[in-house]
């Protein structure tokens, strides 16, 4: 294994150092490095973050390899500065057995671009009717700790209660896709003045907020751990803040796209802006940013959701929900949170690496940079900027909503378990 020295890089506290990497760990962090290294990389102008951890990634394999594979998805993750992703369970077959979760983890290990943790389905086939063998997944080689029917809501309150109770036995967490199905039948976009004008069926904020409110109360009642996926409304932020003030063990994520894009973009009827939960109002965006800043929302997660072109090149109602986001996440967070003064880089490291790893119980990931820590590192240059070009995304699918936007920052080098996955903005062949 080659050794590396990244020179002239800033730590999140602003200190300028060199970081030495050897044998998979950080060998030294010093302003005057003493070790000798095979290769020296330029880190000037960059901030050094622990490798990012995405708690919410759709890798689509098995079943929709036309949209993404574990290999292509983790490669996109590496390009975005990630060293770990949690692969969502809504594959085909669904990740509701030990066999599937072990397969996904194994594919990730073989691909080698970043660590893949499997999310297990809460209910068999995501049908919401009977509990999947959560224990079998937890005790499998995949060591699943995060369970989610993401894409579908565990809407039956008794099922949700049982799942929350049940996962407590192995320190698991239920990650809820909060969407009351009764309130969102055939829903197309945020319900509000834009949907009123466009004549698209509304997806009311209350359909998200009502489930979150119920679930924090359930988690409180059974004293279990709850995570809320892709929070999208001001009311949700408010409810989670209320729950945390009562000491309820709830965590929450927000996506980059919900931090930046509003439902006014739907006026184009272009399905690249179609996502679930939908883009919301500017007031919601402001509340999400404040919530992420004050810690009400714990983390940023991408909800990277690749779709082939044909699923977006159609009328709005027929289009698939979802946006890719791994490759642009850090830039969007810089634009919305750092350049606005809401977060510093230390807080970004917390919200995009350290805390997601804690929520997901991802051992060896999300470790603050320190001598002896696993060398999972993202070297990021906040001073660059680039216009997003769909064709340049290395995800197998190109459905980025940020196309044409000028986003700040660029990931320069990425190390995963001591090996580079990206050097000088170029992917390193595996």
């Amino acid at each position, binding site marked *: 294994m080659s050794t590396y020295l990244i020179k002239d890089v800033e730590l999140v506290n602003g200190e300028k150092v060199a970081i030495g990497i050897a044998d998979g760990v950080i060998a030294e962090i010093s302003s005057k490095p003493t070790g000798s290294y095979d290769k020296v990389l330029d880190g000037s102008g960059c901030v050094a973050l622990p490798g990012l951890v995405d708690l919410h990634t759709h890798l689509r394999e098995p079943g929709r390899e036309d949209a993404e594979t574990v290999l292509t998805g983790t490669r996109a993750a590496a390009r975005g500065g990630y060293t770990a992703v949690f692969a969502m369970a809504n594959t085909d077959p669904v990740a509701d057995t030990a066999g599937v979760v072990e397969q996904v983890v194994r594919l990730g290990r073989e691909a080698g671009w970043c660590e893949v943790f499997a999310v297990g389905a809460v209910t068999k086939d995501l049908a919401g009717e009977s509990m999947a063998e959560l224990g079998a997944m937890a005790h499998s080689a995949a060591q699943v700790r995060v369970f989610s029917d993401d894409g579908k809501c565990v809407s039956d309150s008794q099922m949700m209660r049982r799942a929350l109770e049940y996962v407590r036995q192995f320190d698991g967490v239920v990650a809820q896709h909060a969407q009351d199905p009764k309130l969102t039948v055939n829903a197309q976009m945020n319900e509000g003045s834009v949907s009123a004008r466009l*004549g698209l069926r509304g997806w009311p904020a209350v359909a998200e907020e009502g489930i979150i409110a119920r679930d924090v109360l359930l988690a409180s009642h059974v004293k279990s751990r709850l995570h809320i996926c892709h929070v999208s409304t001001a009311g949700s932020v408010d409810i989670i803040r209320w729950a945390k003030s009562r000491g309820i063990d709830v965590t929450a994520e927000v996506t980059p796209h919900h931090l930046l894009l509003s439902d006014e973009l739907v006026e184009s009827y272009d399905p690249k802006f179609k996502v679930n939960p939908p883009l919301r109002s500017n007031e919601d965006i402001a509340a999400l940013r404040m919530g992420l800043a004050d810690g009400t929302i714990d983390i940023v997660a991408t909800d990277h959701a690749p779709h082939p072109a044909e699923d977006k090149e159609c009328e709005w109602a027929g289009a698939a929900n979802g946006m890719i986001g791994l490759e642009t996440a850090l830039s969007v967070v810089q634009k919305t949170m750092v350049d606005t003064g809401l977060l510093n880089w230390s807080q970004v490291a917390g919200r995009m690496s350290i805390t997601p790893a804690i929520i997901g119980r991802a051992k060896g990931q999300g470790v603050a940079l320190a001598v002896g820590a696993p060398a999972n590192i993202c070297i990021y240059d906040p001073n660059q900027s680039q216009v997003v070009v769909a064709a340049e995304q290395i995800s197998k699918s190109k459905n980025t909503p940020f196309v044409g936007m000028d986003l700040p920052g660029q990931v320069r080098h990425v190390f995963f378990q001591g090996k580079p996955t990206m050097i000088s903005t170029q992917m390193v062949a595996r």
Partner: protein
Amino acid sequence: MSPELVTELPRHLLSIADLNHDQALLILDTAEELAKISDAPIKKLPTLRGRTIVNLFYEDSTRTRISFEAAAKRLSADVINFSAKGSSVSKGESLKDTALTLQAMGADAVILRHPESGAANRLAGWTNGVVINAGDGTHEHPTQALLDAFTIRRHLGTVGGDLEGKHIAIVGDVLHSRVARSNVLLLTLLGAKVTLVAPPTLIPVGVESWPVQISYAIDQVLPEVDAVMMLRVQSERMQNSFFPSTREYSRLFGLNLDRMNLLKNEALILHPGPMNRGLEISAECADGVHSVILEQVANGVSVRMAVLYLLLGGNIGVGS
């Protein structure tokens, strides 16, 4: 009518929101001119000779399709009717592929009727031709609004003028009505005051941003308006509890003889058709002295001629 004026119109007619006050008046005024042709012995103008117009209908609507077809033919265009089944939602040929096919066949304009909101906007992005929205989902139906405004102006307004100061009620299922959306935009653009009357379940959340007033009491509104537009109510809305029963809907929001008697003498009753007689409107009202429902149909051809003429006519003046 000068070429300069003609070129003021947007390229497509997707939404009334694409029009400004002058453009809307231009269409109405042009329709008045063209209406004269309908009274002429030879109801034909050579304006669009050699142009190909496609009626691309993903929903059955004989009434609208025939109206457009008649309008196009009176302008001497060639009309191709294309009744498509399915959509991306139901996995037929994609709208995009259909658009590219029509373009390859040389269509100068596509008149699109589609069950999904925004379909016309999407189509406009995939074709070089002119796109006219003939009703997209629950979004808009701009030519319906134009023919409604045209009808109202003929009765209540001044030739060449707008609807300043007129008060028009739109009654019924506003939530699901493309007719209502286009009419709210157009009538208020033309200076009219609009009151929506419906059960709160059938008024969209977010309506606060519309330039309208809301009422739940039709009996209070009717004496004050110059025209009342009754919207079609689909009885299956009952199954989703938008209202408890057609009986209750009719009792609370239907236009019947007693209510018709609340209207001012000169007030108009409009309906975009097809009507559910006995539900949102009784036969006495539909066929009574206030009704201009059949005029609406007749005016539809003139207005659609005007739209085709202005969007496709290029620099060819009327009667040239």
